[in-house]
């Protein structure tokens, strides 16, 4: 009796699953296909990743952009992680209930703010400050972009962190309290060790978002194609590169290079997820 609808439901849900897997693989294939001329001409794909960018001499390497993307994304995580952890502890561990609810609402609202708004705020408020404080360059640099990006990705992390803190069974907290744990100790010895998976997931999703975001870096990082020497240098990310080249050109090999950028982004994101999964499963073995 129940079997038939159950089977039908299984088939029904299999369809979107297959479609989404096919799209994921299809996009990678599409980028590979369109980037092929460049890969053949420039030799190995790996060379392309390691070469610098000099279209005049026929070099279409995207190494500077990879460095730009990685440094901006990782620096934004460095800024956003402590901020998000503190904020989520305030929301679900130490803060007053009403204040926590209010703060959570604000954070949820933040997730809905369009990226371009953050970009504007960055251009008019953050960049001039950075320029004044450090007295170097235009203020459009890795630091400005990562600071603004940190604000953009924090809500994702905060919501994941609070969610995982809230899911730690109440009885664990009660056990720790009954043993004389202060609020801080309860968090450090019980809540955090139980919730680390959620923390990790939030960190990875936020990292993916930082890596994939285009507008903030485009508006605030200065977009110079160079290997940055400090956080006050201008840099171009893979995503900005795609946007900038796409807007200017359609036929050249330069245009084809953006598919290599797309592939690199794709691979970086995949590596991030695989790395996290590895960590996840290794620790599961210990339990």
């Amino acid at each position, binding site marked *: 009796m129940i079997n038939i609808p159950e089977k039908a439901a299984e088939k029904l849900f299999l369809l979107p699953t297959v479609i989404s897997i096919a799209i994921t693989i299809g996009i990678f294939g599409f980028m590979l296909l369109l980037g092929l001329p460049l890969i053949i001409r420039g030799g190995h794909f790996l060379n392309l990743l390691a070469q610098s960018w000099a279209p005049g001499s026929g070099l279409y390497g995207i190494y500077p952009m990879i460095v730009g993307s990685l440094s901006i994304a990782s620096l934004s995580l460095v800024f956003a992680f402590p901020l998000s952890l503190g904020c989520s502890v305030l929301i679900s561990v130490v803060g007053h*209930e009403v204040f926590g609810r209010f703060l959570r609402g604000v954070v949820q609202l933040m997730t809905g703010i369009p990226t371009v708004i953050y970009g504007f705020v960055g251009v008019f408020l953050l960049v001039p400050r950075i320029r004044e404080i450090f007295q170097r360059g235009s203020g459009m640099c890795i630091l400005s972009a990562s600071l603004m990006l940190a604000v953009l990705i924090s809500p994702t992390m905060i919501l994941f962190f609070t969610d995982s803190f809230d899911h730690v069974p109440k*009885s*664990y907290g*009660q*056990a*720790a*309290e*009954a*043993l*004389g*744990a*202060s609020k801080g*100790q309860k968090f450090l*010895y*019980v809540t955090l*060790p*139980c919730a680390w998976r959620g923390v990790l997931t939030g960190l990875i999703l936020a990292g993916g978002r930082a890596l994939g975001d285009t507008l903030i870096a485009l508006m605030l990082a200065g977009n110079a194609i160079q290997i940055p020497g400090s956080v006050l240098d201008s840099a171009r990310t893979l995503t900005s590169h795609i946007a900038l080249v796409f807007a200017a050109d359609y036929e050249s090999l330069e245009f084809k290079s953006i598919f290599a950028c797309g592939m690199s982004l794709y691979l970086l994101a995949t590596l991030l997820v695989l790395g996290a999964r590895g960590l996840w499963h290794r620790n599961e073995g210990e*339990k």
Partner: protein
Amino acid sequence: MNKPVKIRTTNLCFSYYNHPVLQDVTLQFFENSLTAIVGPSGVGKSTFLMTLNRLWEEIPGARMKGRIEIKFNGSFHDIYARSYSLPQLRRAVGMVFQVPNPLPMSIFKNIALPLKLAGIRDRSLISYKVEQALKRAYLWEEVKDRLTDSALKLSGGQQQRLCIARALILEPEVLLVDEPTSSLDGKAASVIEELLLSLREHCTILAVSHYWDQVKRIADVVVELSNSHHQSNIYHHQKPQPV
């Protein structure tokens, strides 16, 4: 009873969202004795235990009035006094819950946690105390070869003894036990009963129980709470001493 008083409550009232649970409870508990607290469900037995280590304070809507004093170092202290340290109270008043609540970490780490929370870092002292606590809780022989295994892998009865060991490691003067055997089978339950009887030498035990036969076996004093017309009635039963 000729033993000295350890705990006294005076006009204790307790309510959840203005719904009274305990009304005007004035009681005394004696040193090195096991007092069973009995009564129908919902009469406030578990709540009463929680007033003695202030564990109810995180529960929303809970309110308490009255006075609770416990004798530490020869004199009575109001445990709700502002100057009284909460972690210190919780270390002196251990608690074992109805459902065993080991934390998701190894057996060793579970038992050692209270020491860690109290700021003890000396590793050899910790190992020694963990072994002592496990021996007192009759668990050492069963787990000595797998201290690094997860505590969640133990059976229900073993988990409950682990929780007792964890509560004992700080050598509390008072032990609150909330229906410690209700989630266990008969054999595991009788081990716990025997254990509680052996612990009486060192601490004052207050045990909530539903089972009259259990109460008859282990209790020195029985306090029965009942709730009629929003009034907590208390009946004292003195267990006749065996001849």
